[in-house]
């Protein structure tokens, strides 16, 4: 039971690491990867909570995660296609850098 909580905490950590990268990184591909890391964290959290209770594993969160994975894959594919298109049209894959920023 406590191991399920550990997995849930790892899911929260993954989600927040992804959120950090989504806010802070300027490269669009990194942002897309960040959203995927966030999604993985949310999936891990859901599955872990499905295991946390007494008795049998709850199949409903697992079904939701399967659905979520497929939706995430298709959204990622669309996002990458848009990024490729943007790169070809403008030669830019990064959001503009604020002046005086040393990142």
């Amino acid at each position, binding site marked *: 039971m406590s191991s399920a909580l550990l997995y849930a905490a790892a899911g929260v950590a993954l989600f*927040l690491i992804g959120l950090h990268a989504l*806010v802070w990184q300027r490269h669009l591909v990194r942002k897309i990867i960040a959203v995927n890391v966030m999604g993985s964290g949310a999936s891990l959290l859901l599955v872990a909570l499905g295991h946390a209770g007494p008795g049998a594993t709850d199949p*409903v969160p697992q079904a939701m995660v399967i659905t979520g994975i497929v939706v995430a894959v298709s959204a990622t594919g669309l996002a990458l296609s848009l990024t490729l298109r943007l790169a070809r049209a403008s030669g830019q894959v990064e959001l503009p850098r604020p002046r005086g920023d040393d990142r």
Partner: protein
Amino acid sequence: MKRRMRLRRNASRLLHLGLVLLLVGAGIALCLLIASLPRGAGLAPAVAAAVPASGVESELTAVLLSFRGYDTLLEMTVLTAALAGVWSLGPAPRLRVSLPGAVLLGMNRTLLPVVILISGYLLWAGGARAGGAFQAGAVLAAAGVLLLLAGATVPDRLRGPPVRAVVIIGLAAYLAVALGVMRDGRRFLEYPATGAGVLMLAIEAACALSIAAILAGMLAGGRPGES
């Protein structure tokens, strides 16, 4: 001027520090919240009680196709819409300029029949154990990816309507079944007591084909066969 740059840099660092602190705080709060959640049996007993009436033996398949069938229907819609989005961006670029190597071609010849077999097995197994439309579709999509990497393109006579038909067949079959069962006075997606398993298998077979076509089409990165 230099001084202003340094000020900006410091402001940026402060902002980053604030972001990290905010996220760490949110993480601690979320973990405490999760630890304090009531730990019941969840929906497991309800699912276990309803599975015998669903027409399939696998709990996961029963949840996906029957109890939460609406989610899965919308998921197919999202997949189809995402591919429509990719197609709207333009024709597919050439993934391969040179001829594929003998190793890749030989591997494809050996793997592709096996992949199709595995995909069919996964589809069938979904009724009773791990497996189902999405697993079968993902494996089949891998076959499509191998073909694309070997430089395969959609042949001329299959361009247009045949390709679109494969992409749409999953959503179309799902909607047809969901609406078809309403004829006998049932609600949307409410399968009849007998034959639910067959209906679900038919939906899953159509969805597996569409999922494979959609995922492979995403890698192709545009409308087939126009470049």
